């Protein structure tokens, strides 16, 4: 597995080659040698011999491996780009090979459940903050790495892949991690901002997926742009309430990773979460949708978690609650929309 390139001192690691992972690997490979971890051996084979991912060509600077130890030994900075459902397992897989000098920046917009030994979500009477981990918290909990950051922002993988201009936020408590991220990722077409509120930025990316599903549903029902404007602004308020309850700061939610990402996702047919909402509105059931999607729509899991969490905070989250009933109960999507239109939002903005 060790290739002739391994003596190069400064390789950058990428773990996970889903569409976003592959896009980030490509961006990184413009300036650095990249070692990418993939689970499937055919994919590793394809990258190393044909320099392509599922047929589409990639930079020769990207080398693939199935060996976590090799990746950790060769790289100081590692990008974790795995879906939240696999995040804990992958982190544990890498943990024995990670050392205090490593820095990890992740790009996963999801949450993890942190339950006591042997309990499942249905056993829990209530979900509290300590039962929810953001991805950076997973890394801090499972590894010795402390210098952790995250990537968030309006970064549709398909647009990045074809080289359209975009910007992202690297958030970390550590300035040095932000600088590393900026140095590695910044190109002429890719702007990188820094933010020290990592929790707020992570939550922005996570929570906006809920609103994206709702937005897709509105479009699917053909309710028009006025309704979408309403949804986005009410969604923003809900996002901020939920984000504050989980410990993020308002400033991050109205930044690029918050409102920037929200607007993009709510308008884009390229977004997975949007697609889920759209297909729901067209009458498909959740299981039908999930069966035919190539990659996970993080929003579904997030809705389930956040609905349970918000129940205990004493704050209402009407959009999340109703989507939950549509996804996991028997509420019709039309009824949910009607309910939302009637919900008494008296004050426009009460959080600033």
């Amino acid at each position, binding site marked *: 597995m060790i290739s002739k390139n391994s003596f190069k001192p400064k390789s950058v690691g990428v773990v996970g080659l889903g569409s976003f992972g592959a896009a980030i690997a490509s961006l990184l490979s413009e300036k650095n040698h990249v070692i990418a971890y993939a689970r499937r051996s055919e994919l590793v084979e394809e990258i190393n011999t044909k320099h392509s991912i599922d047929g589409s060509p990639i930079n020769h600077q990207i080398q693939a491996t199935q060996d976590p130890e090799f990746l950790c030994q060769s790289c*100081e900075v590692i990008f974790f780009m795995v879906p939240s459902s696999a995040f804990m397992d992958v982190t544990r897989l890498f*943990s*024995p090979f990670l*050392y*205090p*000098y490593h820095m990890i920046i992740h790009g996963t917009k999801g949450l993890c459940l942190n339950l006591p030994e042997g309990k499942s979500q249905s056993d829990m009477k209530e979900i509290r903050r300590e039962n929810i981990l953001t991805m950076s918290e997973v890394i801090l909990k499972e*590894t*010795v790495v*402390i*210098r952790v950051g995250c990537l968030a922002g309006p970064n549709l993988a398909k647009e990045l892949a074809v080289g359209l201009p975009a910007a992202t936020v690297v958030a970390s*408590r*550590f*300035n*040095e991690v932000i600088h590393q991220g900026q140095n590695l990722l910044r190109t002429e077409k890719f702007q990188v901002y820094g933010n020290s509120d990592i929790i707020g930025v992570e939550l922005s990316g996570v929570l906006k997926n809920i609103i994206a599903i709702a937005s897709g549903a509105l479009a699917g029902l053909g309710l028009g742009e006025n309704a979408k404007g309403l949804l986005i602004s009410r969604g923003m308020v809900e996002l901020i309430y939920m984000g504050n309850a989980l410990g993020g700061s308002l400033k991050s939610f109205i930044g690029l990773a918050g409102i920037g990402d929200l607007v993009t996702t709510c308008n884009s047919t390229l977004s997975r979460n949007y697609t889920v909402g759209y297909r729901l509105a067209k009458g498909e059931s959740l299981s039908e949708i999930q069966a035919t999607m190539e990659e996970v729509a993080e929003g579904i899991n997030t809705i389930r978690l956040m609905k349970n969490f918000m129940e205990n905070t004493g704050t209402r989250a009407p959009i999340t609650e109703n989507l939950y009933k549509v996804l996991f109960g028997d509420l019709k999507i039309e009824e949910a929309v009607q309910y939302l239109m009637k919900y008494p939002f008296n004050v426009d903005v009460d959080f600033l």
Partner: protein
Amino acid sequence: MTDDYIKRKYEPILPQKDEWPVMKLSKSRKEFVKTVAEAAKNRILEFTGGKVEVLKEELETTHYREKLRIKQNPWAVDPEDDYDFWNGVKSSLVQLSADNTLNKTQRKKKYIDILDEITLRYAEEIASTFKHTHYKVTRSIVTTGFARLLNAARVKGFKRLFSNQYTLQDKIQIIGETKQLRDLASKGTIIMVPTHFSNLDSILIGWIISVLGLPPFIYGAGLNLFNIEIFAYFMNALGAYKVDRRKKNLVYIETLKTYSSEAIQFGVHSLFFPGGTRSRSGKIESKLKLGLLSTAIEAQRANYQKGINDISGKIFIVPVTINYHFVLEAPSLIKEHLSITGQERYYQESDEFSTSLKISKFLLKFFTKGSDISVSVGKAMDVLGHYVDQDGNSMDKNGRTIDTRDYFISNGNITVDTQREEEYTNRLGNRIVQEFHIINRVFSSHLVAFTAFQMIKRENKKMDLFNLLRLPEEELSISYASFKAECKRVLERIFELRDKGKVHIAPHLRREIDQIITHGLENVGMYHAKRPLVKDKKGNIITEDLNLLYYYHNRLDGYDLEKLF
């Protein structure tokens, strides 16, 4: 850590006093003070970014504040020439700003000279004056003197004056990782971080350090304590350096931090009270003062920079909790706490420990009557909060050895990054708070105070804390039966927490519940004029001072036990 305490005297790890780091430091005191002053000066210059104007402003502010302090808040310990010195600084500053003949470099040099004078003075002021003879005297006073008192009270009959049946170690129980502490203290540098509830703590810790056979630790003690002669004597003997809380100017604070950092690098064991001051509320500290703590991280990085990568340059953080049934200063502490949080009136420092006589009276009471104290020594951690093994190696949660040095590496080299170290300090602070809660030892008195207060609170659900505390005490009465039932519930939860390794308990909590309650009632705040909790003639539980009850109740804050109510 078991619940049993250790009763044995340890051999000193360094029998020769000349080997003690603190002795070495006191021998080279003069050079050390110079090193500190110089390093502090450089730090401040770095802060000012080499800009003369910024430096000038900083010096002027320092001078202004110092003059104000001398005028408004002079203390007995202040040096005679305080006024003259700052007058001198003033005239130098005035002269310099009026002098137009100097070029930029000359001016800068002059300002640095003034800074130099100030840091040197501060460093001199802060530096401890450890004297071995004083240390020996103090140690023997504390051990033999107190042991006499103790036995006089407990052993009956004529022989009591000569009995050695009870030692101080029965009175003040030491539990926890004492062996590891001794091992590490002989190889690396220890920073002990205890909880802080009473002014007695520093003497107590000093005694414990000596019982464990460790060489003396240095620590920063409030300069106000040096106003009282008996304390000044003890403090000096125990290697205290002086922290003057009146001086809040940058130059002083940086000099103080440099002192601590340099002393740690020198290999002297230190004691930080990370709460900064006594806990006013009676809660275990949850927000730590990070200023001093940051010097531990800085010193660790500096050692690595110097290439000391083995255990001799490693710094170990050892959390310690001190558990009391009774805190002498409780009434004034809680009053201060409430007036600060309630913002009703400006708070003024009033001190129960104001005279030597009062302290002596308390000590007499303390040693002749009941009320045990226990001291829990936690597991040692590295400066990032990882546990270390017996040889001082840091370990991750799966027991894999890791190198703390790697945390200071970026692109393959050790780098100085103050923002990074700030974050590490936050992290270490959080870890210490976690450890405090784990090694904390629950007493019967904590249990009864907690339960009683929560029951009163439940009865008056609609009131906020301040209205609640204003309730007339004579109207609050809890029937014994319901009190017992609730105590039992809380105790069960405490045992659950204990089994999960989240807290420790005193052995007396394994008795029958009635006995535990009796024990708790007897001990909770036992020497206060108004008792926080007593049984009245009808057998009901009543309080004579709700504020005090709240104070003792707070000890069990942070375990989510209030959710039971």
